[in-house]
């Protein structure tokens, strides 16, 4: 049981990292990123490939974050020209393209066969269970990121990016470089997704293109929105709830004895759907509520 909980906790924290990044992009500066999974994938594959080549995992993960951020650069430059829905589709397209590239470019990514045998964090250490150590490492990372980003959002910088979300033209006419700020924030969010990808790769030990479908992006959105847009704690709570739902519904069978095993998959899906609907209806501002009134 413990190691299952550890696994779920790890996945939840990976999603928390993703959600913090997306929340920064959407909740604070208002950029609609529907391709978050692309940066996740870039981080995952970079770190995995480097570590397979023998590069220390820590460096690999860092490289993954940097590469994810760099790949976000051209997209965010575009976003100076595009508004919400349009940026949404461009990022979505980007993530699908990345997925297809991963799938097609055998020589690099193992293509459709996937990339097995990725070393896990701390696998070379002789003490302590790997799973627990991974959980501790990612917890520490999430805590650092959480406080660093919270500090940012509470600074004048954070105020400014929220003003951009409310009305970009007005901020421009105040003489602020909104495009540059958007680029910064977008890259920062992508870097966080890249780090999440690194943790994911070493946790799963196997990567394939089918793990990076748009559904992952949707899940992160769900986490952000259920938790509360523009709230730091919202991203955290949202991810924990999301994973609790996705995984917790596995146990629904124990309370629903009359349901056949194959019908259970349907019931699970339905429970998740129902939860999403009820959450959005009854918690208009997310579980964590509004920031202020």
């Amino acid at each position: 049981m413990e190691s299952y909980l550890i696994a779920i906790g790890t996945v939840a924290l990976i999603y928390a990292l993703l959600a913090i990044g997306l929340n920064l992009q959407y909740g604070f500066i208002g950029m609609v990123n529907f391709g978050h999974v692309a940066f996740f994938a870039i981080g995952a594959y970079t770190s995995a490939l480097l570590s397979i080549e023998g590069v220390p995992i820590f460096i690999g993960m860092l490289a993954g974050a940097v590469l994810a951020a760099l790949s976000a650069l051209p997209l965010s430059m575009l976003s100076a020209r595009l508004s919400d829905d349009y940026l949404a589709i461009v990022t979505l397209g980007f993530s699908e393209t990345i997925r297809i590239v991963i799938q097609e470019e055998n020589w690099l990514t193992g293509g459709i066969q996937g990339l097995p045998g990725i070393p896990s964090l701390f696998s070379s250490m002789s003490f302590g269970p790997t799973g627990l150590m991974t959980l501790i490492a990612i917890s520490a990372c999430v805590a650092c990121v959480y406080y660093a980003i919270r500090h940012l959002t509470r600074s004048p910088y954070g105020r400014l990016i929220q003003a951009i979300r409310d009305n970009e033209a007005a901020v421009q006419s105040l003489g602020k470089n909104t495009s540059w700020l958007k680029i910064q924030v977008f890259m920062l969010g992508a870097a966080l997704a890249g780090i999440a990808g690194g943790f994911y790769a070493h946790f799963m030990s196997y990567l394939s293109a089918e793990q990076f479908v748009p559904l992952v992006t949707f899940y992160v959105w769900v986490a952000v929105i259920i938790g509360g847009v523009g709230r730091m704690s919202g991203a955290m709570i949202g991810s924990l709830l999301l994973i609790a739902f996705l995984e917790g519904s596995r146990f629904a069978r124990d309370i629903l004895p009359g349901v056949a095993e194959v019908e259970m998959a349907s019931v699970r899906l339905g429970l998740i759907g129902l939860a999403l609907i009820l959450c959005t209806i009854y918690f208009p501002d997310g579980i964590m509520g509004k920031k202020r009134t």
Partner: protein
Amino acid sequence: QASSGTFRIGALNSITGSGSSYGVGMQKIIIAMAERINALGGAGGRKLEVFAEDDQTKPEAGVLAAKKLLDVNKVGAILGTFSSGVTLAVMPLTDAADAILMNTSGAPSISERNTKGFSWRFEATNDRYGRAFAQAAKNNGFERPATMAFNNASGLSNTQGFKEAWEAAGGKVVQSVVYEPNRPSYRSEVQKIIEAKPDVVVMGSYLQDTTIILREWYQSGYDLRWIMPNWAGNEALIKALGKDVCEGVLTVGTISNEGSPALEDFNTLYQKLTGNPGSTNSYASMCYDMVVVLALAMEAAGPNASSVEINAKIPEVAGADGTVVHSFEEGREKLKSGKISYQGASSKLNFDKRGDASPDFSINIIKNGVIERQSRVQV
């Protein structure tokens, strides 16, 4: 790990996602077979308790489900992983937990990674499929084959295996198209194939996409023959498309162990559980065998054996040598007097050193809506 009265097993199947058309039947069979073993008094003095999970045909979901099965439900064996991605991702977990993993995946790399010997593959590897395809093409006198593959590990390696075998024999493949899943139409893909003027197309495909592709092709009016795996070219395909479209389609499959009582038994059971003939889901027959093999190994290992001990007995109950048996009851009897060789519904099994079953293949042809055996090959 296993409490004395029961042995816990996980049925990890693709209930949703692209494998769902097989996974549902596979899971039903596992559950039904476990019940049957229990009704017979259990195996090795223990009842089987099944925990069913859905891997959504996705590695990530598969890993989480497997972790739940291993850590929460404390299962000693996971049965029925289907997609190679899931099997490859779950394997390190079962290895770490000393749990048995029985799969129906085709990727050759599974054998290489099976270092601890806990993984058992009931399906032929993809490259063997490819060789069987090549045999079918040669037997029927085709000269200009083209390939079409569903873009996943299984689809690609099947056609890749074909290509290698065909070219090794000096032939040439005139066109290779890889197509994406879940498209409304594959007309452009079919057109690309047709423009190369092949006489036969070798498919690495599933039922769903094959239905669409054959319909597109038929309507185009171009004269062409097809070779495809039997999980795509089966009764369901004929039902969906009608016999005109399917006329002359060649299908290749591992030989279910026909004539064997196990297969007959499976067919009746499957028909009863799902309403469809057993031949529409050869993976389900593999799952049928998984439960029997596991139960026999438990029987052989004796009461309260650990999963490691049970695992060690698998070659002794389903290896190449020993008294041939066709069912759990029979096996349980014969075990008392030495080694047995369970010959299953899906194949004779006869696991090799790397844990792979090596079934024979049959080449079939669809004539007037009926699937007929053309020949039987060993590759």
